[in-house]
């Protein structure tokens, strides 16, 4: 799965992705979701915390596309604004996890020896805790809040990246061009940045695309369990948690936030699949 990232390579990848209509559609849908969410301030019919106590728990209608919740807030508007939180958590925490994981993995793989041993043992310890359990206990330690949720999700995604980065680094560090750079007197950081990193990006990008979806779901799970983000900030998982008490008679409250999570994660997964196939034509 390795190969130097060059402009032609990237063009190739795009060309291959374009040939898959499902990926193109997913990409467009995802862009649409992002667009809706980023422009929520202009698109959402109501502010996310606007409460009309005379119109609580209303079913979907012309005024309220997805109905209202128990405080008389427009669910559609809240889902749009909530998406902002979910995407932010998904991308930021994943970026953090990927960065931390890659750093650990590359350092472990490149330098080897006791550093490798120590880092990978620590990573294995984290891997011994099932990811959801790890995220839950991290969230419990850190307490609720946006930053803490991102941190908990990020930490729980470190091990996977560390392992991938290490394995890829091992496979490229003895390549001729790395040896050559070393012979020419390049420093270790220089080699890592100029030669190792570009060559291990492909598997990491695939893992990252698929990981964003998982991160969004995990953040929603934390929100649902009451370990996530505080009100009145809308968050899809917390919206579902609040809907539990009303789901018997007001199904719209439980339906739409769940669908929002699913749609986002599906498009991300399809894009990730397409990306993987495109980066590695062998696997098609």
């Amino acid at each position, binding site marked *: 799965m390795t190969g130097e990232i060059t402009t032609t390579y990237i063009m190739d990848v795009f060309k291959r992705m374009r040939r898959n209509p499902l990926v193109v559609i997913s990409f467009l849908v995802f862009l649409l979701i992002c667009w809706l969410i980023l422009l929520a301030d202009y698109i959402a019919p109501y502010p996310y*915390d*606007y*409460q009309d*106590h005379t119109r*609580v728990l209303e079913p979907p209608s012309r005024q309220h596309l997805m109905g209202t919740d*128990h*405080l*008389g807030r427009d669910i559609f508007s809240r889902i749009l604004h909530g998406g902002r939180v979910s995407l932010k958590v998904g991308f930021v925490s994943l970026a953090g996890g990927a960065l931390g994981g890659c750093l650990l993995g590359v350092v472990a793989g490149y330098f080897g020896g006791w550093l490798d041993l120590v880092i990978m043992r620590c990573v294995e310890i984290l891997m011994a805790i099932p990811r959801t359990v790890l995220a839950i206990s991290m969230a419990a330690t850190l*307490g*609720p*809040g946006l930053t803490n949720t991102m941190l908990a999700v990020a930490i729980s995604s470190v091990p996977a990246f560390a392992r991938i980065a290490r394995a890829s680094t091992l496979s490229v560090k003895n390549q001729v061009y790395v040896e050559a750079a070393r012979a020419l007197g390049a420093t270790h950081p220089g080699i890592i940045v100029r030669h190792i990193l570009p060559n291990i990006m492909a598997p990491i990008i695939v893992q990252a695309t698929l990981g964003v979806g998982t991160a969004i779901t995990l953040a929603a799970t934390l929100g649902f369990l*009451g370990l996530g983000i*505080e*009100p*009145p900030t809308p968050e899809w998982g917390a919206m579902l948690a*609040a809907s*539990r*008490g*009303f*789901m*018997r*008679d007001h199904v719209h409250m439980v339906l739409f936030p769940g669908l929002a999570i699913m749609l986002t994660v599906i498009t991300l997964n399809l894009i990730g699949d397409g990306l993987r196939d495109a980066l590695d034509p062998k696997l098609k």
Partner: protein
Amino acid sequence: MRLSTKRVLVSTLVLLMVVTSLVGCKGGAKQDRALTIALPGEPQTLDPYAHSNQNGFICTTLVFEPLIKKDDNGEFYPWLATEWEFLDDTTLRFKLRDDVTFHDGSKFTAEDVLYSLAVAAESSFTKNLFGCLDIAGSVIHDPTTIDVKLKYAYAPILEALASHRGAMISKAVYEASSREELGRKPIGTGPMRFANWFAGDRIELETYQNYWGEPLAFDKFTARFIVEAASRSIELETGGVDIAFDLAPADWERIDKGANTQLIGGKTHGISFLCFNNSMPLFSDIRVRKALAHALDLESLVKTVWQGQADVADSYYSPNIFGYKKLGPWEYNPEKAKALLMEAGYADGLDITYITYESRVNLAFAEVIENMWKQVGVNTTVQVVDLATFTTMNNNGEIPVSLMTNTAVIPDPDAALLAWPTHRTISLRHNDGHVDELLEKGKMSYDQEERSAVYQELQDYLWSKLYTLPVAYPKSAYGASSRIENLPFYPNLCPDLTRIRFAE
């Protein structure tokens, strides 16, 4: 390995059929003489003097008994004690039944009464009710006669003794075991005795064969712990449990109209109030407290947050407790709120941190007041912590402002005003000696008229000071299957389950 696609399909189908055939035998073993209830949480302990949790007491009303009980008309009647009389203001004589035994077979005597009361007077959970007892001064005349001494006249003493907090425990058992053991395997004199506790799931009780009184309508009791309110009502409707406690208002109507269910609900002895931390400079300014109060449309707030199942509070304790005086509700006037804020020097707005813990009402309340305060330029940051953290912070005086609910264990103003003595460590911290004086004056008299007057004066005083803003008198309800009879609503939310009868 000779598999074929067809075989794989067939075996999958067979498996699915096995699974669905299991569906047929619906569980929730419902025997005629078994009572199953759903509680909103697991008790930490069943030692009646080691907690203050309703879930535990709902179970232990079947295991432990008080000396006297109170009927629906408010009259006390004999239970473990056959007679009682006040010899003077601070001496209370009890004659005890002679035929009562504990679940370990030992006899119940005056020694046990004195021991129970000594534990009650010491326990941090019951001190507020029984701290008045003078244990050293009390005298045991014979195994069935005891003179209980009071340090000072304490009006609610009979109420306290008749409540679930006045449980009679065994001296021998208590002295021989650790508190932990007792909490897990309670031994009392009641009609049911402890059988099993499946951690995280349920507690089971069974009939005590040598019970002195009438046997109950049921001979097996199971209390399941189901945290989610929606799940409790679903269990009730699908026949998994006979009684579901603490139903969410969203489910009331359906349970009430259900063919197989009934709603048992009413006004509680509780009050929900917005507690300002008066030791913080910001809230020590009465103009700020008044502004925040005027900014709230209590009518709309209470209706939305409690979903119509609460009244707007208009004084400092519930109207169904004597001495209550209607004073409010506090006026909704955003203009006045803004003016007061400006006067207090917050013309450019004000930042407030609102800390609460997770519960249906708390979250909704936080979101609504955040919204209402925003209208008058107050910017509220809501922090949701877990109950444990909240309790710690509350006792360290670190909660700036939050909704708190206090449900009186007994229908007496002294219990209803539990939050107010200055020695309490909760974040109220008003540090106003005058409140203490009035509270002392109120509880040390037996004259109802006189007490009423004191408490009315106190309510007036509190209303003028606005250390807390009364918000709501919440209602509560439990749902029961229609075969349950003779279970009235208990405003302290701890019903006496021994009364239950089954419909034919």
